[in-house]
Every structure is written in structure tokens, then in C-alpha cells.
């Protein structure tokens, strides 16, 4: 819930502000380790400002996911199956969200009402502590950012009770227009007694490119039945 609200804020905030790339393409590899299972997902992601994301999953199966505003379309070209999910609010954009956030000062936290309450230096890392806006203090907790040599190296999101929800470590930063964003993100997601580790690696990141025609003109073939889901 905390992260959902935060992500919604960031989506709205990012889509309303300028100085962002018009298009982004990248390859991704996501590894999730939870309890006794390991899952690896690989593919390509295309972003078109302000709010369209096209993801082609290549492993472990062929899947196309398109997120545009509050509609998520999922298509399986081999199985010839499709889902269209209509949400009430904006949908979080996997992968691209972290890059867009990294390109804003303070990760966009001050723009969405978070206030810097404290900072401290431990070794080479400067930690800044951010509190949520008053009206959302029941849903959202503190956010901690660690910066090393001007680059984000650590973040931690807490719930309103002060318990850690997500801890992330950022590595291998890439520069665009003076802004740096990480190509490797390791996260630990804590839900009660359950811990999940997520590793994301980005490669072949390109900005302001012409998107492929099949991405621009993507549509589900008429012969494929679509299961409509409304939230």
C-alpha cells in the first residue's frame, strides 16, 4: 500500500514535469529469489512519454505487456490469449519507473511533498531521511536515501510503524544529461516474516530513439479473445 501510493505519486509527478526523455528502450533481466523458488525474467522494454510502456518478455515465455495510463494489456502470441486490465488509477510502470525517478533531483521526493528531516554521514555515504506528507502519514512511512560520491547507492522505504518494507542497493551508474541512474539494483522486500530478494540488471539503454513500428502499432489480433478485467 505504502509503495503503491508512493509510486502513484511518482507516476503523476513524472508525467507532469519536463526535462525527461521522450523515449527509452532497454534490455532487462530480473531475478527473484523467494523462499524455495528462483525466477528469472528477461526481455526488452520500450517507454514513450508520458505514460506508455511496452514490455516484450522473451524468457521464460513469450509475453507482451503494454501499460498505457490505467489500462494494462497482456498478450501471449504463442498461446493466442490476452487480458485487458482496467484500473481505477495510474498503473506502476515496471523498470522504467526507477530510471525516471533517478533522473529527478531528490528522486522527486520533495516535489511530491516529502520533507528532508535529517541527514548523517557514515563512512563515504551521506544518508538523508525523508518524511511523508502529513495527510499520508497513516499509509506511508519514512524514506532513506544513501548517496556515495554523488550517486545513489542505497534506499530504504519504511511503513508508518517504522518497519522496513524495501531495502535497495544501486550499482553501475550510467550518465545522461548530467543525471546518473543505476544499471544494477538489488532489493530486499520484507512482508511480515517473508523476505524476497530481487536483482535487476539493465543493459543496452537508449534514450530518445525511434521506437520499432511493431511497438508503435501494437494491437492484439482480432482472432484472439481478450479477457476483460476491471478493478
Amino acid at each position, binding site marked *: *500500500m505504502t509503495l*503503491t501510493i508512493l509510486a502513484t505519486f511518482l507516476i503523476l509527478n513524472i508525467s507532469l514535469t519536463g526535462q525527461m526523455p521522450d523515449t527509452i528502450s532497454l534490455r532487462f533481466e*530480473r531475478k527473484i529469489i523467494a523462499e524455495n523458488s528462483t*525466477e528469472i*525474467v528477461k*526481455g526488452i522494454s520500450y517507454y514513450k512519454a508520458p505514460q506508455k510502456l511496452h*514490455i516484450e*518478455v522473451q*524468457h*521464460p*515465455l513469450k*509475453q507482451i*505487456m503494454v*501499460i498505457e495510463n490505467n489500462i*494494462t494489456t*497482456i498478450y*501471449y502470441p504463442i*498461446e493466442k*490469449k490476452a*487480458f485487458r*486490465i482496467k*484500473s*481505477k*488509477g495510474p*498503473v*506502476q*510502470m*515496471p523498470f522504467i519507473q526507477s530510471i525516471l525517478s533517478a533522473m529527478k533531483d531528490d528522486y522527486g521526493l520533495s516535489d511530491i511533498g516529502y520533507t528532508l528531516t535529517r541527514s548523517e554521514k557514515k563512512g563515504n555515504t551521506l544518508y538523508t531521511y525523508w518524511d511523508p506528507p502529513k495527510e499520508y502519514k*497513516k*499509509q506511508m512511512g519514512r524514506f532513506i536515501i544513501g548517496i556515495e560520491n554523488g550517486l545513489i547507492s542505497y534506499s530504504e522505504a519504511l511503513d508508518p510503524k517504522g518497519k522496513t518494507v524495501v531495502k535497495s542497493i544501486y550499482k553501475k551508474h550510467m550518465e545522461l544529461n548530467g543525471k546518473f541512474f543505476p544499471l544494477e539494483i538489488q532489493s530486499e522486500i520484507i*512482508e*511480515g516474516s517473508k523476505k524476497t530478494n530481487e536483482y535487476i540488471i539493465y543493459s543496452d539503454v537508449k534514450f530518445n530513439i525511434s521506437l520499432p513500428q511493431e511497438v508503435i502499432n501494437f494491437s492484439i489480433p482480432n482472432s484472439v479473445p481478450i*479477457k476483460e*478485467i476491471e*478493478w
Partner: protein
Amino acid sequence: MKTLSNKFFTTVAVIMSLLIFITPILAMQDDFTAGRIAGEQAGKSKTNGVAWMAIGCLGGLLGVIVAYIYEPSPPASLLLGKSPEYVAAFTDAYKNGAKSVQTKNAWTGCIVSTLLYVVYVVLVVAAAENSVD
């Protein structure tokens, strides 16, 4: 002996051909079950129980109705790289899981607020009786 041997090979062949058909069905069933479990868990954990209890407490019965109507959206990243069977099971279970928590918390809030109101009325009546005496 030859007949027995033929029967044995026929049985093995039938079992093997059945396995060929059953294996993908079992895999689909696994995906469906995994999707349903993950969806229920995600639905329950993504729903803020405290917030829904507050709605139930503040809005009384209205809060319970709101809990029945409101359905949260699952994060798209949870469906990435998953099979169609998983997605179908997940989306249904997510809605049901989230709704059950919302409804339970809203009812709890409603009952708590009603009990508090009853206690308040009893205290007021008792105080009034004492002042009359």
C-alpha cells in the same frame, strides 16, 4: 508368455502416452494454483487493514459498503513473465483476497463503533439516573 509380454508393452505404451498428455495439464494446474495462492497473498498484503478498519469505524455501515465496492489494482510487475493460467488465477484471487480483508476490517470497525456507542449510551443513561437520585 508372448501374450503376457504383449500386454506388458501395451500397458507401458498406454501409460507413457497418458503421461505425455497429462504432464502439460499438470504444469498448467501448478501455474493456476501458484497464481491463485500468490494473488490471494498479494491482495491481502497490499490492502491496508488499518485504513479499512478506520473507514468502517468512521462510516459505520457505509464503510462496509465501500469495502464491498472498492477493489485495488495488482502491480503489473507481479504478472511479468507469468503464464496465462497464472495471470487468470492471480487476477481473480487478488480481487477476492483484497476484498475479504477490506470487508473483514470494515465489519470489525463497524462492530467496534457500535459497541462504543452502546457503552456511551449506557453511561449517559446511568449518569442521568444518578443525577435524578
